[in-house]
């Protein structure tokens, strides 16, 4: 009886914790809104907030209607909460629905950044429906819920790959399909019907507000504690909770909570340091946009192995992911891919490195608190993710292009999406250059 009571208390504690961390994960929408909004020109800034609102307004509906059912592989979970309360393990299922909802709309927000300042609002609405309704949930099922990847022992604790690399690669492909912003390059180069690269001289379009961008960075940083540490309970307690004894729950928590928090902290710090250092190395000055993005890159990279790697490794991992940001930016500029707010350097590369680094750590330390990581499986998962994402992203954004939803008109792009799509300027009073 004591055992049962203890377990029930722990489940309540777990639910309260999930609500807290889930609220933080939800608040990442604000982080993305300002991270992206500050990095675009002010004529496109409100449009960014509207896109995040779409994630909330429509992404949530889709997730509730059928997205979560696909994700969890259980059709009874469509329209969660409309069924008879008695039929669901309410506490667990709901907690899972809620946190995974936050993760889903985070992943959905990523691609918004790379195609910013030119992608149409109606296109974005359909993207949200398809991404939150199919593309994300299915891969989540594959890697996390009951899919083969999970069974092979693939580790992606808090989603470096499932959430970030998946979103980041979508972002990269979307930018390639949608094509560069007007005037960004002096020439355009088509690669078949689908892809459109810039060529010739490449202009820089500075965004409008570093303060706002930094607000986004700080919000994302604090929310990542919810993202990473909030994943402790989900992975370990949620599904097997009926068998879990109180003692077992305590053990898992006592092992994972300190590890994840420490690693999150260290990798974030490493990312900041790496980006400061990388910027200084390349340009002779540490620049704020690389640095701020470096913090996010570190946090993205650590998701995968956050309960497995050790803190020193985490810091170094962060340094690596932060330091390459200016390089990624330069490379994309050179290739002719216009990633408007530097999404790829943050989610795509750092997500990939983080996913593989867990395998590397597995070479150093085979087992930790009962978890084993294998380089092979990590690589396999990575490759599967590339394949899956590429196919889906090409179908999605290729489709948008085919039906003419990919871009606003040139006139609208010149005017700016705030006025063209929403008739509301972001700063009605301020004089802007």
């Amino acid at each position, binding site marked *: 009886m004591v055992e049962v009571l203890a377990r029930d208390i722990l489940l309540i504690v777990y639910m309260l914790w999930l609500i807290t961390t889930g609220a933080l994960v939800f608040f990442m929408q604000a982080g993305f809104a300002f991270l992206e909004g500050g990095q675009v020109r002010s004529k496109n800034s409100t449009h960014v907030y509207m896109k995040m609102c779409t994630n909330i307004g429509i992404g949530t509906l889709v997730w509730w209607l059928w997205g979560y059912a696909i994700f969890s592989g259980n059709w009874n979970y469509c329209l969660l909460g409309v069924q008879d309360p008695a039929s669901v393990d309410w506490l667990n299922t709901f907690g899972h629905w809620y946190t995974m909802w936050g993760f889903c709309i985070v992943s959905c927000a990523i691609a918004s950044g790379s195609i910013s300042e030119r992608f149409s609002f109606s296109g974005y609405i359909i993207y949200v429906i398809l991404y939150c309704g199919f593309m994300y949930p299915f891969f989540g099922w594959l890697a996390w819920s009951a899919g083969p990847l999970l069974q092979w022992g693939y580790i992606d604790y808090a989603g470096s790959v499932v959430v970030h690399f998946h979103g980041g690669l979508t972002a990269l492909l979307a930018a390639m399909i949608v094509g560069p912003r007007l005037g960004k390059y002096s020439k355009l180069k088509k690669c078949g019907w689908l892809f459109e690269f810039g060529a010739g001289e490449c202009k820089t379009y500075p965004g409008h507000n570093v303060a706002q961008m930094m607000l986004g960075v700080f919000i994302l940083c604090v929310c990542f504690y919810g993202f990473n540490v909030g994943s402790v309970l989900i992975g370990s307690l949620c599904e097997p909770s009926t068998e879990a004894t109180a003692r077992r729950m305590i053990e898992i928590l006592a092992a994972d909570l300190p590890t994840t928090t420490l690693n999150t902290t260290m990798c974030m710090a490493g990312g900041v340091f790496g980006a400061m250092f990388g910027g200084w190395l390349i340009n002779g000055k540490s620049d704020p946009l690389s640095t701020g993005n470096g913090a996010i890159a570190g946090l993205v990279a650590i998701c995968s192995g956050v309960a497995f790697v050790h803190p020193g490794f985490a810091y170094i991992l962060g340094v690596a992911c932060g330091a390459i940001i200016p390089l990624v930016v330069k490379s994309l500029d050179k290739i002719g891919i216009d990633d408007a707010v530097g999404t790829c350097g943050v989610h795509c590369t750092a997500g990939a490195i983080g996913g593989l680094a867990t395998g590397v750590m597995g070479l150093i330390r085979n087992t930790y608190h009962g978890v084993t990581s294998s380089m092979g499986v990590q690589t396999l998962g990575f490759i599967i993710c590339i394949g899956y994402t590429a196919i889906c992203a090409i179908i999605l954004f290729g489709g948008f292009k085919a039906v003419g939803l990919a871009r606003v008109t040139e006139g609208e792009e010149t005017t700016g999406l705030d006025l063209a799509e929403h008739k509301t300027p972001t700063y009605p009073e301020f004089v802007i*250059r």
Partner: protein
Amino acid sequence: MVKKIEAIIRPEKINFVKASLEGLGYPGMTVTEVKGHGSQKGITEIWRGRCFKVEFLQKLKIEIVVTDADVKEIVQTIVREARTGSIGDGKIFVSNVENAVRIRTGEQGDSAV
């Protein structure tokens, strides 16, 4: 004789104008944010679900001071580059400057331009 060319143009045209002028070797320019109101009707904006008309539109004013000889070519270049053909393209005004001084050197007159 020194003249001042004052052109009010669409903000998005500034780069084209500047690029073309560079070919001519103009001495410099000063750009000001202005808001304009002419035959153009203004645009409709929405604030909290309510439409309203904004009558002043954002324009750029370019000021270039040059010697008499260059005026015509510069004006033509601006007209060519800043034109879209629709209402709101702006205007150019040319006026007399009595004297010009370069602060750095104290030079006066034509050579100061």
